[in-house]
């Protein structure tokens, strides 16, 4: 980031300092030349689809238009009006934001805590924890969701049986997916289970790169584990934490499989809908691509906004990334 930023700045200043040297002026284009292949790929894979997404969101574009049954018509902001006029959209959006935030916080807390734990245990337990994490990570979302659902099944699941055996008779035949909040909590557990390994391993790698003397010095000064994390490790791991946080925000905001599988397409009376499942049911499953595109644009803007605000906050705290 620093190198990139200083590039154009010096390029702008140089010509004034040495206006007689024409070769220097061309130096301003050199970085762009090197970037060209990457920009071309990004342009093709990112900008063009986004342009199409935006374009489709202003049209009436359903299966009938795609297969030529009806002409494509321009709708202006019609799709957005439909979307924003739907009361369910707003409640789903709120639920998605709160749920994604809870998932991100829980994932980060679990991942970081276990990463610190990894650095403090012996080789064998470390290997076991790593394998458990990798196993969870490697499990396909559909499989993981189905297994979790089975574990918490009111008729056959071992969790209810175990809780009942421990004397909590309220959990006999308890249905976790019936109440809105227990259903969300169940999905949250599954999401944390399958996403903490990424955080854990990335942060663990980061901690390993921190010179041992610094941590030792802090420990010698009598700092607790929490204090070492807060005052030594976390500041040093800041770039890594930023990346895993942003990744988690994006992944958890776009959650689909877990909700779709575990709550059977959005829960009893659609109480557990999140934005992606809502988009699928409202738009894609019935081939209303233009409405789906409008939802896609809204999600894109939201995620961009969250990312920018987050980066801004970090910058304001003083450090460049």
């Amino acid at each position, binding site marked *: 980031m620093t190198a990139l930023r200083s590039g154009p700045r010096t390029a702008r200043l140089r010509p004034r300092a040495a206006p007689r040297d024409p070769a220097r002026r061309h130096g301003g284009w050199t970085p762009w030349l090197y970037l060209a292949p990457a920009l071309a790929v990004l342009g093709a894979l990112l900008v063009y*689809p986004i342009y199409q997404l935006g374009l489709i969101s202003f049209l009436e574009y359903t299966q009938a238009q795609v*297969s030529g049954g009806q002409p494509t018509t321009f709708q202006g902001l019609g799709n957005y009006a439909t979307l924003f006029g739907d009361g369910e959209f707003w409640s789903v959006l709120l639920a998605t934001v709160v749920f994604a935030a809870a998932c991100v916080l829980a994932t980060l807390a679990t991942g970081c805590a276990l990463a610190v734990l990894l650095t403090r245990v012996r080789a064998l337990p470390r290997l076991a924890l790593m394998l458990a994490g990798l196993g969870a990570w490697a499990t396909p979302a559909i499989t993981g969701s189905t297994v979790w659902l089975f574990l918490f099944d009111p008729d056959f699941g071992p969790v209810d049986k175990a809780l009942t055996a421990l004397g909590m008779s309220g959990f006999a035949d308890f249905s976790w997916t019936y109440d809105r909040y227990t259903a969300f909590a169940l999905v949250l557990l599954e999401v944390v289970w399958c996403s903490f390994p990424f955080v854990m391993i990335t942060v663990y790698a980061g901690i390993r790169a921190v010179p041992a003397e610094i941590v030792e010095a802090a420990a010698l000064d009598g700092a607790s584990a929490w204090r070492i994390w807060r005052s030594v490790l976390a500041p040093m791991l800041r770039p890594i934490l930023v990346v895993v946080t942003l990744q988690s925000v994006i992944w958890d905001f776009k959650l689909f499989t877990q909700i779709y599988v575990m709550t059977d397409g959005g829960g009893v009376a659609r109480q557990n809908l999140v934005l992606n499942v809502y988009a699928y049911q409202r738009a894609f499953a*019935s081939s209303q691509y233009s409405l789906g595109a409008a939802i896609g644009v809204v999600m894109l803007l939201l995620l961009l906004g969250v990312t920018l605000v987050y980066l801004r906050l970090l910058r304001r705290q003083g450090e460049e990334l």
Partner: protein
Amino acid sequence: MHLSARLAAAGAALALTALTATACAPATSDGAAGGDSRTGTLRVWLFREVGNAPKEKVVRQAVADFTAAHKGVKVTVDYIPVDTRAQRVKAAFNDPSGAPDVIEYGNTDTAGYVADGGLADVTKEFGAWSEAKDTDPTARRSVTVAGKIYGAPLFVGVRALYYRTDLFEELHLRPPATQDEMAAAARKIRAAHPEMYGLAVGGAYTYGALPFLWSAGGALATEKDGAFTAAVTTPAARKGIAAYTGLFGDDNCPAAKCAGMNGNDTVTAFAAGRAGMAIGGDFNHRAVEAGKVKGEYGVVPLPGRKKGEIAPAFAGGNNIGVLRSTSHRTLAVDLMKRLAGKETQRGLFDAMGFLPTFTDIRAAAAKRQPYVKPFVDTLDAGAEFVPAAPGWATVDASLVLPTMYQQIVSGRKSVDAAATEAAHAMDGAFHK
């Protein structure tokens, strides 16, 4: 998960780019009718069923008969997975060059496919087909949109009441003749066996719930000059909705467990011996036979409100249609008639248990396999069908009806409020 999500995102981006790289505006197929060549290769897409080999054998025979009658014509048959059929069929509509000439499709998709401009109008040929006079009226409705016919019915699927003979004997019950008797029997079973459901019902089991609505005299929607209007708020419809939602509760099927169940869940519960009764289809027969309750169950038509009545069942099933983009129209229509003809339907029943749509073939089938009799009786009493409106796909995909039932069952909304909301959502989809 993350890796796959990213791969999927990258794949979607690539697909989008590939799709649209040639034009600035989103792609639109010209979808025009493609001509009427009398030689060449015909392509057919059929659904791949669980245990597909017997189906393939019957189809091979039908195709052999067809090619024997048309020299110089070849037929290739592909079996497509049922799970991804929607994408495959849409892709075929979008790109006629890779599209088949003849397809099998689910009968609830008819109106949507017609609105998409994908299926060819075969009204004339169907009318002139000698075998078509025996097609049962409900099956004919499932290929009809706004008075025109878009295919030939291949088979129907219909649901009836499965019940446990051993429990009924133990509790001195008779197979229920009315819905009230059925509810009473369900409560009696639950009272005697608290670990079981009396009658397993599901909040997401639309096709199990609709017979109650229809038998009360209600309808999902009414049609006037091709325009559909939701009818779930009529007094008769509300009575039928309440009759079904009344079955949820601790005395039969607790809402906490049953609100989220779908049709498969209720049949699984019955097959595993956890329910005294369940509403299951002829297509569930094998699953129940393979379950714990084998030899301990019977099937009767789902009773209506009064003695002697049968609640109208939903007539699901598949059709065979010709694509509008085919370049072999006459040949494709002929192949359709052979694939959905009496000979093939007889063979498919014996091979796969698919109920024929021709009344005479069906009656003969019921004689050979007595287990289908209650299902045939149900069909003969008159079955119902979802509205043939292009917007029905939207209603179906956005789970309007399961949401309505679940709102009532979970106590969030009254019957009136939930039905009003559902009607609003349906009208929104119909009038788009």
